[in-house]
């Protein structure tokens, strides 16, 4: 299966000042530090992790919205053109993004219909009448009503606004949709509506999703494959159902066990402390400061992401030790 999207060893480092004054040294914040991923057409890759792990930056990197410090992105086998170049703009209708906060992503002074038509006004060649027709079509597809075309964002509910953002992203019939926390701001009953909608759209239109979220339950619901990030790196990747049922990396295990569930209480791997500051990532395995199984090797050497026999990819020195799996 050839990949629709392929990212190789993506890095994005930011220069930050560590204090005030003219002679303060600058430090390097490694938001994304060597992420490789590949996504086939019509499939969903879930990207999970806690705040500051670099999942949103990864989403922007693969779309070329943020230039990488190093690494490469290929879309349909072609190198991603430089941002703002004519080639990049020509490619943009194929790649769209949906953000968490629909109110922030919409213009309050324009009716939603005008905003939904906007991508075609920018990229398309159709006449205004055709654009309007297409916009109404897409609105129906995402479960909005025809009469809402002339409404303004503040007149709609949160779920409806998220549908507007989704409709706008779908106008150009993209091949890839990067969804950055698309349902986190919504209530449970509305979340379910949008999750079902995303799944239906994928089935009908064959869109691939890069689905970024901190909500493991929702990610499991929509993803074929899941990658877990910690401090700018992927620490574990594998089949969605299998990964949540049998997490291998100690961080994934802690993360999965921390999710409150209905039903019988499960054994919890409670982590100590906060994630380290991304400006000051610990040497060796970045997770060793919070890992209950860390050894001297973990403190000195960064473990590479490598395949295990079950088809999983894990970045942990001790993942093969049977004793470790029992201790969980």
């Amino acid at each position: 299966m050839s990949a629709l999207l392929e990212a190789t060893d993506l890095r994005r480092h930011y220069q930050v000042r560590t204090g005030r004054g003219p002679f303060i040294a600058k430090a390097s914040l490694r938001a994304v530090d060597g992420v490789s991923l590949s996504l086939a057409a019509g499939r969903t890759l879930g990207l999970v992790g806690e705040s500051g792990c670099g999942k949103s930056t990864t989403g922007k990197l693969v779309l070329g919205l943020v230039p990488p410090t190093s690494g490469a992105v290929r879309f349909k086998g072609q190198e991603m053109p430089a941002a703002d170049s004519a080639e990049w703009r020509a490619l943009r209708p194929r790649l769209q993004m949906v953000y968490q906060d629909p109110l922030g992503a919409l213009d309050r002074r324009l009716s939603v219909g005008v905003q939904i038509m906007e991508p075609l006004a920018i990229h398309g060649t159709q006449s205004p009448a055709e654009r309007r027709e297409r916009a109404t079509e897409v609105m129906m597809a995402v479960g909005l009503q025809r009469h809402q075309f002339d409404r303004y964002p503040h007149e709609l509910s949160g779920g409806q606004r998220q549908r507007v953002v989704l409709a706008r992203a779908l106008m150009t019939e993209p091949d890839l949709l990067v969804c950055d926390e698309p349902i986190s701001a919504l209530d449970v009953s509305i979340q379910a509506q949008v999750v079902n909608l995303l799944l239906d759209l994928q089935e009908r239109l064959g869109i691939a999703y890069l689905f970024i979220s901190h909500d493991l339950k929702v990610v499991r619901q929509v993803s074929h494959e899941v990658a877990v990030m910690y401090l700018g790196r992927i620490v574990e990747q594998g089949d969605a159902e299998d990964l949540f049922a049998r997490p291998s990396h100690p961080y994934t295990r802690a993360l999965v066990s921390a999710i409150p569930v209905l039903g019988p209480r499960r054994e919890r791997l409670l982590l100590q402390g906060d994630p380290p500051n991304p400006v000051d990532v610990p040497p060796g395995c970045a997770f060793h400061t919070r890992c209950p199984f860390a050894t001297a090797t973990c403190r000195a050497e960064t473990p590479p992401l490598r395949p295990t026999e079950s088809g999983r990819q894990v970045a942990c020195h001790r993942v093969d030790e049977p004793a470790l799996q029992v201790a969980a």
Partner: protein
Amino acid sequence: MTVPLVEISGLTVDFEKDGRLSRAVDGIDLAVAPGEALGIVGESGSGKSVTWLAALGLLPARARIGGSVRLDGQQLVAAPPRLLEEVRGKRIAMIFQDPSSCLNPVHRIGWQLVEALKLHRRVDGATARAEALRLLDQVGIADAKRRLGDFPHQLSGGLNQRVMIAMALTGQPDLLVADEPTTALDATIQAQILDLLGGIRRDTGMAMVLISHDLGVVAENVNRVAVMYAGRLVEEAPGKDLFGAARHPYTQGLLAALPTLTGPRRRLAAIPGTVPEPGKAPAGCSFAPRCPVAESRCQSEPPLGRHVGLLHRAACHLAIEPGFSAWNLPKAAE
């Protein structure tokens, strides 16, 4: 049930807007027993926070509060400010979702704790400082001595929430109202904070009201759950009854709308439509427009809460038999 610590009956809250009243809480009856952990779930705008803000007299003047809230028999609705000052912090403390906006950014953590201790316990400076140190220890902050000199912006979200909990404990309250205490925190930090709250309750015997939109958080941390919808209480039961055999279509819908972390993936059963806007609740049952089994009387008569089990109440004309769902069983997604 034992004598309740807090007893809310017929509580209503109306907000005045453009000269019109809009009802946010519409007749809540609810009791909290001493030492009990009660969860309150509901979607945004269901009135779950407003209920407790009203009980503590923390709403702005344009809110009109009716009904009664009794703490150990003492009426809190329309109580004189001096009485409420004695209650707030000392009998009932409250913590909120965003700890950094509740702490004063220009004062050190230690100063803020000492101030609260002086107010609630009338102790002198040295005693207060020693107690502040002990409290930071109790909420699991490492290197507490150094942290006393930190400003809130120097602490992470999880640490700030621990400081807020320490602050809430300064008055040794009988009841802690935790309003979405972990919503702004990452999953691993949320687990730490909930674990801490559980430990404090075991040590002190303090009662807790946990307000949350996350049913998982509530399921794991309370004995009893109340479900709110559009300003009304729709169902109330011990956790295992509510999550195992919900009787109200709204609760059943909420549970079916949740994705799971284990087991086969199935299509989520979404509740159609949206929550009614405040002040625009329908005449009968407020859930009727979204309910799959609503009858004609549901459109006109608001259902009263009635017992469907020993400790199980539901406000539904139909009160579906245990084991049945108002929503068709969802089909497998894959």
